[in-house]
């Protein structure tokens, strides 16, 4: 039997300019969660029981082993890693978005400087430490931006993957050229 390999939107892209590195994140299961009105607390309890994380507060990310959850907008979150517990669907919308996103990780001392050319947020470590996430703009693209140890993770709609990578690389080249 032929087994087809999973292809990520950027085919495993990994580029470096100066001490900056941009790498595509490995494919990971993503589930979008949106509690029904009045069900936020119940969904949070169900998440805690099944996955060991509560529903994140605005701008918060939580981790439990290989499970992560990211705040993703008003009354919305993205569960990354596990298959969602069936219980969650009793309290809100539960939608598989694994194939809908492209993920990138930018590392290096100047990572925040690179994104300052594309994003209106202050992403320096002091203002945006690991554990924080935000919905904002990357150029003209809506993006989910998350601070992690040693860098920043960026998620954009899968259809925007190529544009996001090209724009970030362009900014990396400019920052690296300044030395």
């Amino acid at each position, binding site marked *: 039997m032929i087994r087809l390999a999973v292809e990520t939107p950027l085919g495993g892209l990994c580029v470096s300019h100066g001490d900056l590195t941009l790498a595509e994140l490995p494919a990971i299961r993503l589930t979008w969660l949106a509690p029904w*009105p009045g069900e936020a607390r119940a969904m949070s309890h169900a998440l805690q029981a099944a996955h060991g994380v509560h529903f994140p507060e*605005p*701008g918060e990310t939580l981790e439990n082993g290989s499970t992560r959850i990211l705040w993703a*907008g*008003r009354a*919305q979150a993205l569960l990354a890693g596990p298959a969602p517990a069936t219980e969650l669907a009793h309290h809100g919308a539960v939608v598989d978005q694994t194939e809908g996103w492209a993920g990138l990780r930018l590392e290096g001392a100047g990572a925040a400087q690179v994104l300052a050319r594309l994003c*209106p*947020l202050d992403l320096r470590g002091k203002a945006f430490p690991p554990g924080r996430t*935000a*919905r*904002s*703009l990357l150029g003209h693209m*809506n993006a989910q931006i998350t601070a992690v140890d040693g860098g920043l993770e960026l998620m954009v709609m899968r259809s925007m993957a190529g544009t996001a990578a090209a724009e970030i690389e362009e900014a990396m080249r400019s920052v690296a050229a300044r030395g």
Partner: protein
Amino acid sequence: MLIPCPLCGPRDLREFSPRGAAVTLERPDAEALPEEWHAYLHLRDNPAGATRELWWHGAGCGAWLIVERNTVTHEVIGVSLVTGEPEQ
């Protein structure tokens, strides 16, 4: 201009879309008199000073916001989430 989103904190103008005067939250009932619909649709204020507007944080949290701001000074006086409940 920065708009302090109640969920996201102060954010740059380019993340928001202005959606007009907040009077659209006080839409008349379907059975309302034509005079009421006429007033709602056509008789709008255009103040130089404090206004109450709807802004959509589309490139952020996706929330609709009621933004009170001064059109003369650009000062943002207050921001709150649209709750979906009828305004009192």
